[in-house]
């Protein structure tokens, strides 16, 4: 079964962690994740500048490790990311901003990637809220 997973909440929201645990369970169950799409406040889940308190789960680091380990296609919505200050090298240069906070394995791209993932996958599962 092919899954597309969309995350609408930042890394400090419980729903971002829920999306991660769902994605891990999907792979563990022998399923495929065709794309992870980070939209709206979900773009913060991809930020490389998040510092998690030592006594809390470092969900952004867990996302990064999960995406890297499984070589997943992890797309961050470019329009949502720009307005929230989540920039890769190219966008920081384009808009003359001093900070870059979207390192690999994340990739900035458009909403079309969510649409395509929804067409390709058997199930689109969205995560947001609390």
């Amino acid at each position, binding site marked *: 079964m092919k899954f597309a997973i969309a995350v609408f909440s930042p890394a400090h929201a*419980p*729903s971002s962690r829920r999306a991660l*645990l*769902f994605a891990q369970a*999907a792979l563990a169950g022998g399923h495929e994740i065709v794309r992870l799409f980070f939209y709206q406040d979900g773009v913060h889940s991809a930020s490389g500048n998040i510092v998690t308190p030592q006594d809390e789960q470092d969900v952004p680091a867990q996302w990064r490790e999960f995406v890297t380990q499984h070589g997943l296609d992890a797309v961050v919505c470019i329009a949502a990311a720009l307005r929230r200050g989540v920039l890769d090298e190219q966008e920081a240069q384009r808009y003359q901003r001093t900070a870059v906070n979207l390192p690999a394995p994340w990739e900035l791209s458009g909403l079309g990637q969510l649409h395509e993932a929804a067409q390709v996958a058997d*199930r689109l599962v969205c995560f*947001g*809220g*609390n």
Partner: protein
Amino acid sequence: MTTLHVLSHSPFGDNRLASCLRLLGNADAVLLTGDAVYALQPGSEPRRQLSERRLATRLFALEEDLQARAIDPAGLALAIDYPAFVELSIRFDKVNSWL
């Protein structure tokens, strides 16, 4: 076409649960996650509404979210883990998250 409705907001803050129950098809199911598990709080109005719908085997709640909030589903909802969540998303034709 069957749908798994996934709720994640507290039923005491908005109308998502009521809207969801209004739209719920006869073969659809509800999964309570995060603060939405507060709908199972004993003696509450949302719990009464859920009981009235007699969802029986079509009402689920994420076990760790129940545990984190000390909510006992007490026969009303089936507590599930993440592998079961994945299986549910496959059993139903679509997953609709009430974002």
